[in-house]
């Protein structure tokens, strides 16, 4: 179990472009595929991961590892997720700093970045509204959308710190659900 956990997150770690948001659907896919964690539980995990500081993908790895194999699981999954960053950044700094500025690399990222944008958007849509129920418009989805819009407004317009917004929406949840 532990080595499985490690390698699954190592694999995801190597492609977690864009600060980790983009790989949330990939993590869910892997979990579903292996029958480790169901959709509803995954949603709770991502909520917990998102409210903690640090990258959401790494936090999810910690939570999933803990859920499946306790403290050792949490450690192994987290290391699996972080190790690719460690290896790749060292390699870039040590050997390819010059190539990093090359035209070819710039062209690759010119193409990669829009894809990551699409992936993150998909993560928001999928995680938000598509995965958890058959009927599209339920009380829960409607209220979730309302809270989401309220949060966006609060952060963009009033520049509130995300943690304030998260706590407020927690209270909103207690009242609404």
């Amino acid at each position, binding site marked *: 179990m532990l080595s499985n956990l490690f390698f699954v997150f190592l694999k995801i770690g190597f492609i977690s472009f864009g600060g980790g948001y983009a790989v949330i659907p990939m993590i869910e896919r892997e979990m579903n595929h292996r029958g480790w964690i169901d959709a509803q539980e995954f949603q709770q995990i991502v909520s917990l991961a998102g409210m903690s*500081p*640090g990258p959401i993908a790494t936090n999810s790895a910690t939570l999933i590892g803990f859920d499946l194999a306790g403290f050792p699981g949490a450690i192994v999954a987290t290391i699996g997720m972080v190790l690719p960053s460690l290896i790749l950044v060292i390699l870039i*700094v040590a050997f390819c700093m010059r190539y990093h500025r090359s035209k070819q690399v*710039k062209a690759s990222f010119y193409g990669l970045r829009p894809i990551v944008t699409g992936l993150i958007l998909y993560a928001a849509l999928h995680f938000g509204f598509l995965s958890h129920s058959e009927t599209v418009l339920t009380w829960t989805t409607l209220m*979730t959308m309302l*809270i989401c819009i309220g949060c966006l407004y609060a952060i*963009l317009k009033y520049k509130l710190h995300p943690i304030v917004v998260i706590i407020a929406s927690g209270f909103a949840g207690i009242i609404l659900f």
Partner: protein
Amino acid sequence: MIPVIEREVVQKRKWLKQEEISDLVSVAGTAPGGVGVNSAVFIGYRKAGVAGACMAVLGITLPTFAIVYLLSVFYLYFENNHKIAAALKGIHGAIIALILLAAYKMAKTSLLDISTTVMAIAALGVLLFTSIHPIFIIAGGILFGILIVKVKELMRMKVRTVKETTQSTEQQLLFPEYYI
């Protein structure tokens, strides 16, 4: 994240020179993984080799690991509490908002012209309506990127592959970076 690191590492400790920050930003932002972790590796490696990189990663990961771990232990005790479950449902909405903000930030630096906008929409469409594994979409994006830049160069069109840094607008959405 970057401004905090810059203040600590350039101004207070003088580990990096100001000019090196642009290297840091470009490497940390493009390599897979969180910007904070990647910056830690960059700085650790520059200052003290592989061991330094490992220590820096340990340093930046431990606090979040501890917080997440405590949170999950706490959650285990209250899993069946109705109020906690309801609060988490509310927080779910806030997390979607944060993910959307991340997408918006990414879009601002990546959608430079019609080709990139079309690619982003196409990627979203493929993800929504097919079950192709994202890794192939990522690989496709890289290939298309190289191809489009080549073709545009052959047609002698000007291509901007990177967004010029505008410091003032970057500062606006600083807070959500706390989570990257």
